[in-house]
């Protein structure tokens, strides 16, 4: 047994209202730069729907993830090492920008520059890829939001095609939910396996999958390798980029930006311990429907003293083991068994799991005039509403309805049980027993899913104590990818001598960083001069006289800068009065 720890996430889909706040804040943080205009590390899809990029789940087309060979060996579905290198000059499995969407901006200047006339000026859309005017915007990352264009596009949902149900139009009225997606930070990541440069790696300490921007050579195989299409190609820097699980935040114990800003509070972050030795065998489980139980079996019970001892021996820090014991993610996945992995059939052992949505079922019963919160009605509906269950099963369990039904039944039982308490009716232990729980366990699950506070939803140990000094500074000085032209929030104008974003990175937060460091490590006042004449007042500690903070004072004269400025101002009233005269006339 080789114990490894990973930070992972569970999302409760029942609570997602599809507001896209997570997507927007993530984009603001990570991908609001040229080259990644089309990239959403976090996106929210309406289901049924095509997703982003369009039909990414069609692995017969994109060939992401892993496949089992006839001899039971795991190889990337797009082909092994030789095949990957053979297609390095042109990769037919690489999505085109139009499979995502053509990013655009608007000609805002037209609103200001157009001469006065009878018609209102219009800010026409302009492509950010070709710079040309676009006649029509025809697609985006969530164009089919809320089933938009559904009659036209319903046949394009890969999952729906697989369940081949005839009752599709009914489904439009009864069954819709949102699926927020980030990188899965898989245990068996096929993007890492596809990277010819070895630039992609899984971090030992917390399992986060990252791209080494200095080693990435833009061979673009990772985009093909990832079945979730959560690897992106920055078309200006020519490097791969992906969701970082906001590692600079995680390292200091803060949740990811998408979690922090989630208005529905539906995300949970915690530590999972797993047995890395058994991971390859689990990923190579022959039957696709057995992949979910196989992965579940990898997770180690942090309450087991043997596991804790093994984790300690494997060098996992003590506070990580403690965090694993309080992990909301472990509880939702293993203790309550209500969270399921997304597309386990890709064999990547994904580590962002989902609590399937019960609300569509409740709504369907209520709409038909029955009591939507009675557990017997709910149980019956879960059995008979075959479409939602088989759809969810295609998403979460490779088509096996049993785990989905069990999860939905537990959610239904919780709902009925809590309603009785709410209405002052006596507690019925039969409800909990019907899903294999006792009343305490059902109440604990209710607490975690409904009331859990910030500290309970996000149990994130900081990085190892020995690293704390450096991590403090990481958090204070911004993200380590944060430099001009780099993958962080860099400037847009700079272009190095060898094309876009070449040259030594010049940290944008450099003044903050240096001033803080100097103040922390020296006994004299922070020298804020020399930073291109700019002063960051947030950093200025009042000591010293930074250049540029006060107006220039002329040498040798009694009249200082203030007076000079007064004279300058003196010229202005004339202008103002001139305008005033015009106004009066």
């Amino acid at each position, binding site marked *: 047994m080789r114990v490894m720890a990973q930070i992972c996430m569970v999302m409760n889909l029942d609570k997602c209202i599809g507001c896209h706040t997570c997507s927007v804040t993530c984009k603001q943080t990570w991908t609001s730069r040229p080259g990644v205009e089309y990239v959403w590390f976090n996106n929210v899809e309406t289901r049924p729907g095509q997703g982003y990029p369009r039909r990414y789940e069609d692995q017969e087309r994109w060939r992401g993830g892993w496949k089992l060979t006839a001899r039971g060996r795991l190889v*990337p579905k797009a082909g092994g*090492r*030789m095949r*990957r*290198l053979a297609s390095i*000059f*042109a990769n*037919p499995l690489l999505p*085109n*920008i139009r499979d995502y969407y053509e990013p655009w901006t608007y000609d805002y200047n037209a609103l200001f520059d157009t001469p006065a006339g009878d018609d209102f000026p219009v800010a026409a859309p302009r*492509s950010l*890829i*070709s*710079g*040309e005017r676009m006649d029509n915007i025809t697609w985006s990352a969530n164009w089919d939001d809320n089933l938009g264009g559904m009659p036209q596009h319903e046949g394009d949902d890969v999952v729906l095609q697989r369940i081949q149900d005839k009752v599709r139009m009914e489904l439009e009225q009864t069954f819709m939910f949102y699926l927020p997606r980030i990188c899965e930070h898989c245990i*068996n*990541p096929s993007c*890492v396996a596809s*990277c*010819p*440069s*070895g630039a992609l*790696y*899984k*971090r*030992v*300490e917390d399992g986060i999958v990252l791209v*080494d*921007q*200095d080693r990435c*050579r*833009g*061979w*673009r195989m990772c985009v093909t390798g990832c079945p979730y299409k959560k690897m992106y*190609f920055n*078309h*200006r*820097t*020519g*490097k791969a980029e992906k969701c970082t699980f906001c590692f600079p935040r995680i390292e200091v114990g803060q949740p990811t930006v998408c979690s922090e800003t989630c208005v529905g509070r539906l995300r949970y972050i915690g530590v999972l311990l797993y047995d890395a030795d058994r991971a390859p065998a689990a990923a190579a489980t022959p039957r696709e429907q057995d992949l979910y139980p196989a992965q579940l079996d990898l997770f180690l019970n942090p309450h087991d003293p043997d596991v804790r001892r093994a984790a300690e021996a494997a060098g996992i820090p003590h506070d990580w083991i403690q965090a694993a014991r309080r992990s909301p993610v472990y509880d939702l996945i293993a203790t309550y068994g209500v969270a399921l992995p997304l597309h386990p059939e890709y064999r990547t052992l994904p580590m962002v799991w989902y609590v399937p949505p019960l609300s569509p079922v409740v709504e369907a019963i209520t709409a038909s005039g029955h009591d939507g919160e009675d557990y017997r009605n709910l149980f019956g509906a879960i059995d008979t509403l075959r479409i939602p269950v088989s759809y969810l099963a295609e998403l979460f369990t490779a088509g096996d309805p049993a785990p989905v039904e069990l999860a939905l039944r537990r959610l239904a039982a919780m709902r009925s049980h809590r309603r009785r308490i709410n209405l002052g009716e006596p507690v019925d232990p039969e409800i909990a027993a019907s899903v294999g729980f006792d009343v305490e366990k059902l109440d604990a699950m209710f607490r975690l899913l409904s009331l859990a506070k910030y500290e309970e939803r996000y149990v994130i140990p900081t*990085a190892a*104590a*020995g*690293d704390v*000094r*450096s991590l403090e*500074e990481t958090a204070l000085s911004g993200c380590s990818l944060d430099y001009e032209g*780099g993958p962080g929030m860099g400037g847009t104008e700079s*272009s*190095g*001598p*060898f*094309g*876009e*974003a070449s*040259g*030594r990175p010049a940290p944008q937060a450099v003044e903050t960083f240096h001033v803080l*460091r100097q103040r*922390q*490590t020296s006994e004299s006042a922070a020298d804020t001069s020399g930073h291109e004449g700019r002063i960051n007042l947030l950093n200025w500690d009042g000591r010293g006289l930074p250049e540029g903070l006060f107006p220039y004072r002329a040498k040798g004269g009694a009249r200082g800068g203030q007076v000079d400025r007064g004279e300058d101002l003196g010229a202005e009233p004339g202008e103002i009065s001139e305008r005033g005269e015009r106004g009066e006339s």
Partner: protein
Amino acid sequence: MISPVDVFLWGALPYIAVAILVTGLIWRYRYDKFGWTTRSSELYESRLLRWGSPMFHIGLLVVLMGHLLGLFIPDSWTAAIGVSETVYSFLAISLGVAAGVLTYAGIALLVWRRRTTGPVFLATTVNDKFMYVFLVAALTLGLATTLINASTLHYNYRVDVSPWVRSLFVFQPEVALMARTPIEYRIHAISGLVLFAIVPFTRLVHAFTAPVHYLFRPYIVYRARDPRNIGTAALRPGWKRSDV
């Protein structure tokens, strides 16, 4: 008669070019790892690239192999294994012409695509255009040399060009050998040397990180945070960082 210009071109320029290549690569690797990429434009357009790029790259690899064979294998060696000069030059020329035409067609397609596809043209830097001039010049001259050789058939470059190249490696450049070769060989050699010199400063550097090691590594890569990066505050004299 060896002129000073010959001495410079065939005795000094190769060393200058290689020196710029090597120092340039080292310098770029240290200075600009982030800019060291293929800068692929496949995301924008793949229909033409799907043909042009493999044609160009595979053709170029064959051309490269041909140069290595022709310049580094002495004719005595090939004769020793029973390949006559006629057979050798027939093979070399036919393979050379085929690979050259393939490469040339590939780059023509790629340059045309670059010019006519809006997004790709927009992503083309001044540096790229500069690089294309030298790359296409070297390819054109090389293909022209091969074609001239194929049409006349009475010049054997292994008599003087190849020994000259080999003599460079022992630092005894035999300038006279190269100075007497036909003009097209000399121009092509210069264009090739200049191309060597500009490689580190263009996107062509990606060739030097061809991912051969991918064939020999396990699929999944694990990495730990670098312990050397722990703590950025300078240590004061007499203090030692705690291991806790």
